[in-house]
Structure formats: structure tokens, C-alpha cells
């Protein structure tokens, strides 16, 4: 018996969008107590399909065909009043960004109690008491304090737990979870996934889980739907889809997942390091400057030391707030370190300034995370690629020739020179960013979450490009990432950071399979989809 049944659903986009439908020909069933994962890359229409179930589509986007049958009624034909009754009571929803999904000016307890109020349940003191038990149930430490707290006082994981408590308040039949762990650290993600799984078991609630991450899918899904540009390309049980994918798109997605296994131990380099970091420290103080405010002190980098050898790629991994990005930014002097030495080709660039810094820094270039903010929207690609060399004194014609070569190297056509960044896709923009870094002939590349904003298939291509370039140009690379899978794919050695300090360093295979520290082990354990990966490897 199915709880929810969707047939031939079509959702139209407003006129002038890049395609007529956000999703079409969508048909699937949801049975009580099951977890159905809808997987797809950005723009696949996965969120829109789920939002339609709640009658919560963005303005201008509307369903134009098909039926959504829930409890014998077509949701698409319900009045607004009937929908109000449905929302929060029979079907509820949690979102990707738990901070922005909570009202910043309202206490957590009041926001939970509101669900009961919306449906006219309980008296105010009862609502409060229920809010407290709900917070306990979702595993918030110190619920008595949390109920009085404002969202900004909670951590990301705690906020997502509050969202879940709110969604569970009236014991709905269906929970729709729209990328609920994407904004969270990997260990927090594992906890939230476990919570959703437990609650499903305890309450027999059905879950529609929307995600782009096959690892997450493998860990929690009973059934899977794969979507591509608004259409369902494949569906079936988790095992069918994940282990025996039929559609080429599904296969491509699964192949693109970076594997944790299969690294070879690279012999330690014997030559002199190209980069030596000794005792690097950086502390941020915020809130000072006023007469009374006590400054908030964050020790972002504490006594970090390591060597990077020629041709080597080191991965710096850690959760948000571990200081991994600050290390990279200190090395590039985008942030000035408080103390420590950064030796590049014999010079300590941590203590240089002016012309000398400029001359030395050239050897050390960065690739950035966000392909949409890393290129000046008002500059043509030709200017983006030649500006640096010209600033360092290269003749214009020479810089232009070199720029064309670089475009070829990163897999773009020379005609890209005359175009503006907005004319390119995210992956292409990232390639332009790589070309810009290479334009100055650096010996060291710092890649700060360089593939984190990309879809998994594009991610794989960019990682391949980086690996290829680093061998061909014998570059040394510092690869900063939160994603151990990505690190596994490209790094020779891995540095694990926590709260500003290095907790473990070692060859990739060693750190990923036999770490020395409990913290590294906990990070590893939290990576979703490991069992699945072993199953895949076993299947051949």
C-alpha cells in the first residue's frame, strides 16, 4: 500500500528560464516507513519535485500536470486551507541551511511550540513541555537551556536537530528532507543521518531524502530515484540502483565518486623541500575596538609546521573551524601570520613586505573555492589571464600568447579569451581560475576547497586536470579540503587539522586506513558510503 503516489507530475518554470519544465514525467510511490532518496546534480529538479508535495513551490513555478495522491486526495487540487492542515501535521520538511531556516529573532522553544499552535493543539504550557521532550528526543545536549536559546547561540548540527524536532512535533506520516546534511561537517552529518534513521525506525515515518551525495544514499536509502535535468532516469531499490545501475548517467555519477581505497604509497621525497613551514601561528580577535566589548579570541592556527617537497601534493583536511583554510591564506599572505616562518626558495615570505614580497609571492599561487566569485565579473578572460604577467613585467603580446596556451592546457578553446566569466559554467570557470594561477609560472599551488562547489561529475574532471598538470609541470600542491574522499584521490600525504593544530600527518594510505589518532579515525568513520564502496569493490 502506498502512502504517497505521484503520477506524471509536471512542474513548469517561469517563461525565460533555460528550460520549460523544472521537472516532468515524475511518477513514484512512497510506502509507509521507507526512506526514498532522490539523487541528482544541481538543476536536476529534485528539490522542486519534493516541494510540490508540500504545495511550497517558489513564486512563478507551478505544477501543470499529473497528480500527487496522499491519503486519497490529490494534493494539487487542495485548497490553501486544506494544505495548511496538511503542512506540519501530516507532512513536514527540513532544509539545507539550518541557520537561515530558523527565525533569528525567536527563541527555539517558541518556534517549536508554534507548530502545535498552528494546528490548534495543546495549551501553551503543554506545548512548552512537548517542545522540551522533543528536544530531548533529537539529542540536544541540555534541552532546558536550548529551549531558551536563540538560533545564533546553537551550532549547525544543533540547529538541524531543532529543525527535526519541529518537523516531528505532530508525528507526521512523511518527512521531506531537502539536502539536510550538505551544510554540515562530516561527523555531524553522520550523527544527523543516524538520528533520521532512528526516528524512522521508532515512528514508522516515511522519509523523502533529497541529496547529491551517493555516499549518503548508500547509507540510508531503501529505494533510490536518480534525476537528471528534470527527468527520472532510473529508479529501484538501493541495491539495484547502486550496485547494478542501468542508465549510463547513473553509472557515470557512481564512477565519479572519489574512492577512499587504492592509493599507492609514494616513496618519501629525498630532495630539499620547496616550501617549509615552521611554527606558524595566527590568532583572530573580533569585537575589540570598542570601549567595553571583550574581544573574542580564536586561535585559528597553532604552531603548524610541515615541509612540501617538489612534485608532491599534500592534503590538509579538517572540519570547519579547524584552521585549514587559514593556513593556506597565511602562506599566500592573504592573511598575515602572527609568528612562524614560511620558507619558499630560501626566503621567508612570512616576514617580507613590499616589492620583495611581491617578487617572491609570484611562485606561490592559489585556486579558489567559489567559481562564481573567483573571477571578476567585469573582466574578459584575456584580461584575467594576462593581468598578472603584465604586472610582473611581461610584454603584452607575450602574455596573450601564453594565455592562449594556458586555455588549451586546461581544456578550453582559445576563443574563450574574448568572453566574460558569466558565459561559462561552474566547471569551466574553475578551469579559468586554474589557468590564471598557472599564468605566473608558480612552483607551488594552494587549492582551497577548489572542487567543493562543483557537482560530482565535474569535480572528477577538475581533479584529473589538477593531477595531470601537477605531474606535467612538476608542481607542488597544497590541497585544502573538508572531503577526505577528494583528498584520497589526489594527495600523496595528508595533514589532519583540528582546532588550529595539526593532529596527524602521514602518507595518504596510512592516514586513511590506519590512522594513529582517534580524531582522524572519527573523521574516517563518519564518511558516508564506506560499506557501499567495499561492496562495489567486491562486485568488481
Amino acid at each position: 500500500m502506498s502512502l504517497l503516489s505521484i503520477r506524471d507530475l509536471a512542474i513548469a518554470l517561469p517563461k525565460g528560464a533555460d528550460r520549460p519544465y523544472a521537472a516532468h514525467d515524475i511518477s513514484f510511490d512512497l510506502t509507509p516507513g521507507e526512506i526514498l532518496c532522490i539523487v541528482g546534480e544541481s538543476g536536476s529538479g529534485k528539490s522542486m519535485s519534493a516541494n510540490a508535495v508540500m504545495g511550497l513551490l517558489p513564486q512563478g513555478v507551478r505544477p501543470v500536470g499529473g497528480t500527487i495522491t496522499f491519503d486519497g486526495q490529490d494534493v494539487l487540487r487542495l485548497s490553501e486551507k486544506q494544505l495548511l492542515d496538511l503542512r506540519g501535521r501530516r507532512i513536514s520538511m527540513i532544509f539545507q541551511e539550518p541557520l537561515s531556516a530558523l527565525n533569528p529573532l525567536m527563541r527555539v522553544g517558541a518556534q517549536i511550540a508554534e507548530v502545535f499552535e498552528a494546528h490548534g493543539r495543546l495549551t501553551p504550557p503543554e506545548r512548552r513541555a512537548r517542545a522540551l521532550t522533543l528536544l530531548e528526543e533529537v539529542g540536544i545536549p541540555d534541552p532546558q537551556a536550548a529551549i531558551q536559546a536563540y538560533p545564533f547561540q546553537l551550532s549547525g548540527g544543533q540547529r538541524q536537530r531543532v529543525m527535526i524536532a519541529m518537523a516531528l512535533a505532530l508525528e507526521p506520516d512523511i518527512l521531506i528532507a531537502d539536502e539536510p546534511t550538505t551544510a554540515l561537517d562530516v561527523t555531524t552529518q553522520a550523527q544527523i543521518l543516524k538520528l533520521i534513521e532512528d526516528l524512522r525506525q521508532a515512528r514508522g515515518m516515511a522519509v523523502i531524502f533529497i541529496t547529491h551525495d551517493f555516499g549518503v544514499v548508500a547509507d540510508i536509502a531503501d529505494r533510490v530515484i536518480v534525476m537528471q535535468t528534470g527527468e527520472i532516469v532510473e529508479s529501484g531499490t538501493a541495491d539495484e540502483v547502486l550496485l547494478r545501475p542501468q542508465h549510463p548517467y547513473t553509472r557515470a555519477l557512481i564512477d565519479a565518486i572519489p574512492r577512499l581505497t587504492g592509493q599507492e604509497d609514494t616513496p618519501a621525497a629525498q630532495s630539499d623541500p620547496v616550501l617549509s613551514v615552521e611554527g606558524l601561528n595566527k590568532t583572530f580577535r573580533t569585537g575589540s575596538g570598542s570601549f567595553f566589548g571583550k574581544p573574542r579570541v580564536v586561535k585559528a592556527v597553532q604552531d603548524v609546521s610541515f615541509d612540501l617537497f617538489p612534485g608532491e601534493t599534500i592534503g590538509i583536511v579538517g572540519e570547519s573551524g579547524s584552521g585549514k583554510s587559514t593556513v593556506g591564506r597565511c602562506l599566500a599572505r592573504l592573511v598575515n601570520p602572527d609568528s612562524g616562518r614560511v620558507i619558499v626558495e630560501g626566503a621567508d615570505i612570512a616576514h617580507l613586505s613590499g616589492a620583495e614580497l611581491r617578487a617572491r609571492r609570484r611562485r606561490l599561487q592559489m585556486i579558489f573555492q567559489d567559481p562564481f566569485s573567483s573571477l571578476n565579473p567585469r573582466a574578459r578572460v584575456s584580461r584575467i589571464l594576462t593581468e598578472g604577467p603584465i604586472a610582473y613585467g611581461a610584454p603584452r603580446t607575450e602574455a596573450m600568447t601564453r594565455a592562449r596556451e594556458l586555455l588549451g592546457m586546461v581544456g578550453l578553446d582559445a576563443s574563450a579569451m574574448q568572453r566574460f566569466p558569466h558565459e561559462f559554467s561552474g566547471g569551466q570557470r574553475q578551469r579559468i581560475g586554474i589557468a590564471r594561477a598557472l599564468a605566473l609560472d608558480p612552483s607551488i599551488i594552494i587549492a582551497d576547497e577548489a572542487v567543493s562547489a562543483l557537482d560530482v561529475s565535474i569535480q572528477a574532471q577538475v581533479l584529473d586536470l589538477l593531477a595531470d598538470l601537477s605531474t606535467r609541470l612538476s608542481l607542488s600542491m597544497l590541497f585544502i579540503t573538508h572531503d577526505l574522499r577528494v583528498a584520497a584521490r589526489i594527495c600523496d600525504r595528508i595533514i589532519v587539522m583540528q582546532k588550529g593544530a595539526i593532529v596527524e600527518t602521514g602518507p595518504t594510505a596510512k592516514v586513511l586506513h590506519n590512522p594513529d589518532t582517534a580524531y582522524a579515525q572519527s573523521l574516517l568513520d563518519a564518511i558516508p558510503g564506506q560499506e557501499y564502496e567495499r561492496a562495489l569493490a567486491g562486485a568488481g
Partner: protein
Amino acid sequence: MTKFILGRLVKAVFILLAILIFNFLLIHAAPGDPAAVMAGEAGAADEKFLADLRERFGLDQPLYVQLWTYLKGAVQFDLGFSYRQQLPVSQLIADRLPATLLLTGVAFVLSLVLGVIAGVAASARQGSWGDTAISTLALLFYATPLFWVALMASLVFSVWLEWLPGFGYATIGANYTGFAHAMDVAKHLVLPATTLGLFFMAIYMRMTRASMLEVSRLDFVKTARAKGLKRGVIQRRHILRNALLPVITLAGLQAGQIFGGAILTETVFAWPGIGRLMFEAINQRDYAVILGVFYISGAMVLLFNLITDVVYVIVDPRIRLTG
């Protein structure tokens, strides 16, 4: 929270000090004899008065000594002497200040309350004829010179229709007391306060409308909808409270403008406040009064700012609990 407010108070004191220094520098930067500037056009003719001023402010002393004398006086509310009116400036201002506080206070509250209500109404029905009407009116008020709308209002409602008094603070010679007096003042207040408030109402309306529309696109509004809350509840409890934050900030920034407007409104309606005092002083080149009013108006603006800061802190827990 107390820290935040204390911080603002300290800042306010510094700004007042800066205004005094600014005034002092102006007196000395002005073309001609500083003593003549202090005495004003009328006083400058009296050599004895000028000599007296030179001695009192030590105008032959080095500049920093003079500054010190000037600041010391100002702190003791010695804002100079109006030769023209034969009264200390502080006395003149103290007499006129209540009328200005009444006018600006009423106009401020009126414009804020009506502006927010109109903005909420317009945003709730975005694109409807009601929204268009409110937005068009706001656009018109925003483009209308304040003194002109005041003139036209007194012409229409006072001269032609004879509905409301268009002149002064109370009926001359009526000698009302108690409630009758209050009603009389209120009647006199209607035109000045409304015309002063219109321009600011337009600003607050536009800000509220834009802010409501902005907030209504945020994620937590979607959460509220997913809870099954009614539209009205979402509007009031979730959107409005968040949308008010930038409006409060703007209201604080606009406090100074309201006082500037009061100079014009008081001039047109002969409202006996410090704005009118300033207008008279301009015509009489009574510089001590002009500078005194400027200083006091700065203090008033800081007071308004402080009030909006307190309101902001009450509304936003992020400042209340961390500042």
C-alpha cells in the same frame, strides 16, 4: 546590552564635543573678527560689547586656550549671548525647546507608525492596485519640498477651508487651561506635524515594503509555511519583526533630517520652537543663536539615536545577548 548602550553614550559625548570644536573652528574660520561673529550683526556695532567678549573668551590668547575657555563655557551651558534679544542663548533655547520636541516627536512617531503600516499593507498585496496607489503616493511625498507642502497645506486647510489653525502654538489671547489648552495645542499641531511627517513617512514606507519583500524570501519563512502557519501569522510574527530591523536603523539615521525639516515647518507655521528661532537668527545674523541651536539640535539627534538604539537592542537578541 548595557555595554552596548554605554558604548553608544560615550560615542554621543564625543560627537557633542566634536560639534563644539566644529562651532569654535567656524567662528574662527569666518571672514572677519571672531568677536564680531560671536556678537552677531547687531552686537558688532557696540565696541564695548566686543571688548567685553574679547576679554571673556581671551581672544588675544593662543587658539587652544580660547578653545578651552569656549568648551568650559559650553559644558556649563553657556552658549553665548544674543545681543539682539538681550538674553543668553541657553535661555532662548530652553524656552523654545519643548515646542520643538513636541513637534518633532509627534512627527517622528506618526511617520514611523503610518509608514510601517502602509509599507506592510503594500507588501502584503505586491503588485495590486493598492500597492501601486501607496507606492505612488510615497513617491510623490518623497519628491515634495517640505516647506512647500507646509505652505500649501496652510493655504488649503487654514486659509480656504478654515478647518485648522495654520499659525502659532496656541490661540492668542484665549488663555485656555488644562484640557482645553491641550486640545488647542493639539489642533495647532495637526498641520505642522503632518506636513513634517509626510516626507519621512514616505521613506519609512518604502523601506518597510522593500524589507518585507526581502525577508519574505528567506528560508525561515518557508519553514514557517511548512509548519502550516496561517499567512497572517507568518506576516506578523516572522516577516515583520525581521523586516523592522533595517527600518529602525534608518529611523535613527533620519532623526537629524527630521530636525532639519522642523526648521522649515516651524518657519512656515510660526511654531515657536528652536527651528523658528534659528530662522529669525539667520535674518538677524545672530550667529551665537545659530551656533547654539546647531549644537542643541545635534544633542537632540543623538538622543533620538539613542532611543532607536535601545529599540533595536530590544528587538534583536543577537545584540542584546552578545553586545
